[in-house]
């Protein structure tokens, strides 16, 4: 075996570098988020979050080494057992775990706690890869669609029991992977149309305008196309369903728990309740918005470290970046994420097995979703859902689960020449 056949030499170094860049920038920002000029502690101080995060980072490096040293066949062989193991853990979490704010997210002993919901992501990705690599698994067939959705929905249902809506939502990102793997396009058009209509119905105060709009489009479509009774009837039915839906969604929203209702309404009008529900978004936007083009300078921010932004070192860590490094800093970090995502597409496409490709696209889907939703909620583009910014946010479970998720794929990619091509 020649030296360049060794997996280490085939590691996709740009991806690894981007990973470490994000982890280290994140670490500095976690320090800035808790930095107190009057009682300054070292970034290495284990009594503050940056010190603890350093421990998680150290452990992540150990995890990376273990993954890289493991046999590449291991993941394929263990995919289903690992998936089942985490399903059992998720099932047990509500009974064994500790309740915080009405949610039971973590289990563990003493101060060592993990969130099974975080780790179940890579397990689900592996399980889907395993299921979908079977020969002739065609996602255009209803049976196969149901199998894939079943594997995906099992953890979602268990996570909703905790309940953790944000984490559960992440799994729906796997539809991006399904899309690549041939899930029929019409469902996506339908889904996107549904989302667009929902947003319009919620965003527009008076649904009558929306109904008139839909009616006008209907008339336009009917008048310019070929005249047929059947076509007119189909379009008319669709228009009526849309109008009916737009009226019913307000009713559905009113049946949601109040805190979720508020999160949705604040999205459309952030000044609705700036001291109450709107506080997080308002303060988060103030922090980021006050950063300007170049930012206030490292450790010079006032909004995050003085606790105006809640959860400033976990879900709202992007605020510290936006405040202290401004738009330029945001550009660098968003650029790093986009580089990582592009790279993942390239890597996934060059896999020789469907197993690795499905897994690669799952990784991409999950990271893209986290990245998009987390930053969107800090700048008021999406309701506040409690999901972390990958590699950036403070917390062992989050950092480790993303590290495992990403590096299993890096390992697969590095070992791709040893795989037998089974792409169908």
């Amino acid at each position, binding site marked *: 075996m020649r030296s360049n056949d060794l997996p280490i030499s085939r590691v996709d170094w740009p991806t690894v570098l981007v990973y470490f860049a994000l982890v280290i920038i994140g670490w500095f920002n976690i320090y800035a988020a808790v930095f107190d000029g009057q009682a300054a502690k070292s970034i290495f101080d284990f009594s503050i979050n940056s010190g603890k995060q350093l421990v998680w980072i150290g452990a992540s490096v150990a995890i990376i080494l273990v993954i890289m040293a493991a046999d590449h066949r291991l993941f394929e062989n263990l995919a289903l057992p690992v998936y089942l193991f985490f399903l059992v853990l998720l099932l047990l979490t509500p009974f064994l775990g500790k309740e915080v704010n009405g949610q039971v997210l973590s289990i563990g002993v003493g101060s060592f706690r993990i969130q099974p919901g975080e780790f179940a992501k890579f397990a689900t990705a592996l399980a889907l890869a395993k299921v979908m690599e079977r020969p002739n698994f065609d996602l255009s067939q209803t049976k196969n669609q149901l199998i894939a959705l079943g594997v995906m929905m099992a953890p979602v249902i268990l996570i909703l029991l905790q309940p953790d809506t944000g984490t559960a939502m992440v799994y729906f990102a796997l539809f991006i992977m399904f899309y*690549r793997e041939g899930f029929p396009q019409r469902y996506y058009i339908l889904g996107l149309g549904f989302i667009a209509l929902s947003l319009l119905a919620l965003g527009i105060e008076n649904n009558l305008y929306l109904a008139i709009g839909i009616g006008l489009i209907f008339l336009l479509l009917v008048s310019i196309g070929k005249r047929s009774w059947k076509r007119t009837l189909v379009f008319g039915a669709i228009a009526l369903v849309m109008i009916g839906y737009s009226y019913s969604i307000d009713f559905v929203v009113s049946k949601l728990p109040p805190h979720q209702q508020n999160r949705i309404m604040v999205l459309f009008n952030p000044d609705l309740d700036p001291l109450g529900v709107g506080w997080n978004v308002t303060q988060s936007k103030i922090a980021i918005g006050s950063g*300007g*083009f170049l930012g206030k300078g490292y450790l010079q921010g006032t909004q995050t470290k*003085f606790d105006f932004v809640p959860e400033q070192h976990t879900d709202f860590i992007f605020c510290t970046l936006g405040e202290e490094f401004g738009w330029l800093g945001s550009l660098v970090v968003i650029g790093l994420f986009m580089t990582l995502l*592009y790279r993942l597409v390239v890597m996934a496409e060059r896999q020789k097995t469907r197993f690795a490709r499905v897994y690669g696209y799952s990784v991409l889907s999950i990271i893209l979703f986290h990245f998009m939703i987390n930053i969107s909620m800090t700048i008021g583009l999406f309701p506040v859902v409690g999901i972390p910014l990958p590699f950036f946010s403070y917390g062992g479970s989050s950092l480790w689960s993303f590290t495992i998720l990403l590096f299993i794929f890096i390992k697969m990619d590095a070992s791709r020449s040893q795989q037998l091509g089974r792409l169908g």
Partner: protein
Amino acid sequence: MNDKRPFVIIIIISLVGLVLLTKLFMIQVMDDSFTRRAERNAIQRVVDHPYRGLIYDRNGELLVYNNPIFDLMVVPKEFSVKDTAKFLSIFGIEKEDLVTAYNAAKKYSSVKPSPLIKQISSTDFAKIQDFLIDYPGLFITTRSVRSYPTPIAAHALGYIGEINARQLERDSSDYYEQGDYVGLSGMERFYEDELRGQKGVKYKMVNVRGVDKGPFKDGAYDTASVAGINLTSTLDRELQLYGEHLMEGKTGSVVAIEPKTGEILAMISAPFYDPNELTGADFGKNYSILNSLDSKPFLNRPVMARYPPGSIFKIVQSLIGLQEGIIFPETTFTCNRSLVACHNHPSPVNLFGAIRNSCNPYYHQAFRRIINQEISSNTFKDTQIGLDAWREKVMKFGLGGKLGVDMVGEYGGDVPSSQLYDRVYGEGRWKYSTIYSLSIGQGELQVTPLQMANLAAIFANKGYYYTPHLIKAVDGDPTRIPAKFRIQNDVGVDPKHFDLIQDAMAEALYGTANRAIIQDLVIAGKTGTAQNPHGEDHSVFVAFAPKDDPKIAIAVYVENAGWGGRAAASTASLMIEKYLRGQITRPQLEEYVLANNFIY
């Protein structure tokens, strides 16, 4: 079939990045409102209040200073007491009061300071100072209140108080903030800009709970406060104090002016109050008590009270007549009491005799000559022309309009014009017989005590005056006082005409105001009696002394004290003696004034 799907995914990734960066650009670079909101959030502006300028009297004696008072502040979260009994004894506070104040502080905020004990005096502060270190969460803040070593001249000095909403609105310079103290009356108000100093500002960072997180940018934007400018007043502390002593229990005014400069030596408005009452915590309580009194102690009588000038106005009439060439020293009129009432004196009289005896018919006839100069054959028209010409000359004496003293709320008095009579009687329907009361200082004429004192200064100066003022020097520099106080105002009467007047005034004391006579000191004076339809007449006296080199001009009004020769002349004489001699040689006269029993 799936070949284009990876590209769709790449496009989605690109779109996400583009949308996020665009939105970030909008809120970070395009919209600067977030920067301001962040500053409002986290940066607290703490005003460093400057020391207000001090006020001295003309001899450098302190009249107004700042007295530091101390508030003991507590931060409830940091505060703890082990030995409560010891704490109570050190700080001299009852347990209930401590508990009440502590609970109130805690209710306000457990991390922000609130007062625990308010208004601790300097002596008590010295006692507790050393113990403060034993009690975490306690500290002292210093404020200062105005204080008056000698409690005099409350009206002239004025008082300060919290700025009100209307003043805040009118403050175009945006200097003031809610809760600031400003001069509300007297010199405190007139010289607010000099006295207030310059506020300093410190910017400190606070967290979401309001806890102090240190100076913003290490104090780069902080400014230090600049103390206010010290003022020197024209007041003579001793004379003011003595005047207030004499006016104790009376209602009226005393205004003493240095004729050569217009400097106000003493300005007494009786009844008066202790200026210390309007400082510190009791301001509100005392203010409403004083404000509700029937005696109206807040009325600044020297510039706000209005009286008819009475007989003293005859001197102005004489001077106008002499200057006009209408009457001469030798001009005589008979004391024709069918024209206007008079008292027993030899008749006929020349000008000297008319002043000395204050002859009413003389001025009735002399004034007719001044008014009706037969410029128009129509007697109504002639009177109108004559009156307006005369009014213009009278106003040059500082009457009928505000003098412009450095006080707010000055009343300008009244010298009637033809328009007034036209309004009352109709145009062309009034003539000399309608207005003859003006000849003897009655009728529609109104003057303030300050204007009367200024008249005395004009007589002393033989025809000019400086606008009376209370400011002698700004920051020790006499050239920095307002320029208008250094301009000589000419009354338009030749100085030579004043000799006879001065002689007659000096002579007038014998007979009308014997009590005012001081041995070896020639006083030129004139009694007056301001008629009061509501009760006893007001006793009035104006004078200047010494006659040959006047150092003091004075007007005294004592309300409801009858004839001018008694209360007013006696008070004026004592004031003159006090100022020129520094001591009182006539204890029985002093007793007479203090006894306040002038009606008999």
